[in-house]
């Protein structure tokens, strides 16, 4: 399959996923609301001491992203499964990876958009300096989200087609996310604090390494997961 054809299929899948999302606004709004409320609840659970919240902020932010992002992954396959369109998609010749790539891109856009709204809310609730570290913060959020969405889209391809999917997806996904979580929180903490010890770059490089490893592993094995 030519590169051009492959890319056009990727974009077609991604676009379809995203536009279907836009029509059912409940999806996006629901996830954003869930994220905001989670941040609030964390505040009540760990506050009211502002110093404690500021220390915990990086971890709380990423946990919120993880918990709300998971909601999005299963639904990205739900639409096809309900309409029976998955079988039709699979009949197209030329490898299954464009399906994965398309859904990955759609989920990535979705979660990044959620973060655009959620991070400022966290900044307000936990009193975080967001303007100065903005470039570094954006980089960290992007890299962390890529890894998260890669693994999430991958495991959701299985979990969404099975009973008890809301429980199975976190059960399968979260242990795989531990290294990513540790690195993302470490990098975020460093970036927000102005990186006094210089650990930020090391964590960011680790994040990038994880992304490459996860992307490679998932793309190489996606055929086993989506095939009949």
């Amino acid at each position, binding site marked *: 399959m030519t590169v051009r054809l492959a890319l056009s299929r990727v974009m077609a899948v991604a676009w379809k996923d995203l536009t279907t999302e836009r029509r059912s606004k409940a999806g996006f709004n629901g996830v954003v609301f869930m994220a905001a409320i989670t941040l609030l609840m964390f505040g009540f659970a760990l506050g009211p001491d502002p110093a404690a919240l500021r220390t915990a902020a990086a971890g709380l932010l990423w946990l919120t992203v993880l918990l709300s992002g998971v909601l999005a992954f299963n639904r990205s396959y739900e639409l096809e499964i309900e309409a029976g369109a998955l079988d039709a998609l699979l009949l197209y010749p030329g490898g299954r990876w464009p399906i994965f790539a398309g859904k990955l891109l759609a989920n990535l856009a979705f979660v990044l958009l959620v973060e655009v709204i959620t991070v400022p809310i966290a900044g307000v609730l936990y009193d975080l300096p967001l303007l100065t570290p903005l470039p570094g913060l954006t980089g960290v959020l992007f890299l962390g989200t890529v890894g998260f969405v890669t693994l999430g889209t991958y495991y959701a391809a*299985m979990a969404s087609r*099975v*009973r*008890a999917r809301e*429980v*199975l997806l976190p*059960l*399968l996904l*979260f*242990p*795989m996310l*531990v*290294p990513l979580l*540790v*690195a993302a929180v*470490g990098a975020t903490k460093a970036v927000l604090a102005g990186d006094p*010890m210089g*650990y930020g770059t090391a964590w960011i490089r*680790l994040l990038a390494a*994880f992304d490459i*490893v996860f992307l490679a*592993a998932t793309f190489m*094995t996606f055929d*086993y*997961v989506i*095939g*009949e």
Partner: protein
Amino acid sequence: MTHTKGSTTIVGALLILALVAAAQAFGVLASAPDRDMGHLQKIMYVHVPAAWNAFLAFVVVLFGSVMYLWKREEKWDLLAGAAAEVAAVLTALTIALGSIWGRPTWGVWWTWDPRLTSTAILLVIIVGYLALRSFVDEPDRRARWSAVVGILGALNVPIVYMSVRWWRTLHQPQSSPSTVDPAYAWGLRLNAIAFLLVMIWLVRARYRAARLERIAELAAEREALGGRVVNG
């Protein structure tokens, strides 16, 4: 796989368990109380063998998964599944024993060190693997998905270990659990071997059970479809 009489299985199990008891007796009686730890170090005779064999069982899961994706023969998938069940029990036991050792030693039931956390993550991965297997009904899909999840999970464990290790060194100097006094080495080896026999017995028995269950399933399907039960 040749048919073994039911009684041989039980005899085998009893023999092996007797060996475990003997190894434990040797270990506990033959070694003097540790300088610092008193008799507490004797917990190592169960904790360490459990840990080693838990990881070994998980290696069998990885091996079975790879072999299945390569050969596409169902027996590899059944082997992986059997090994995962044993690995789950041994891993949980390892963590519990480590906790029991840790409480009087460090004063806490749990610490966030790389070994303990990786083992806990390993347990979650195995439980997730088993949950996936229990939810998927079609054998072919179950085998394919289990194999992939198993392989990715296995690759993740060392990554978790390294991440946590790095995460920890940033906060405090690495303090690993005390290494075992050489005086304990022989007792440890004996117990490890005894436990290995237990692990092998359990995996073989559960593998055999899984194969027989599949045979019964297939035979029942054939009958249900209305034909005679055909040899093969």
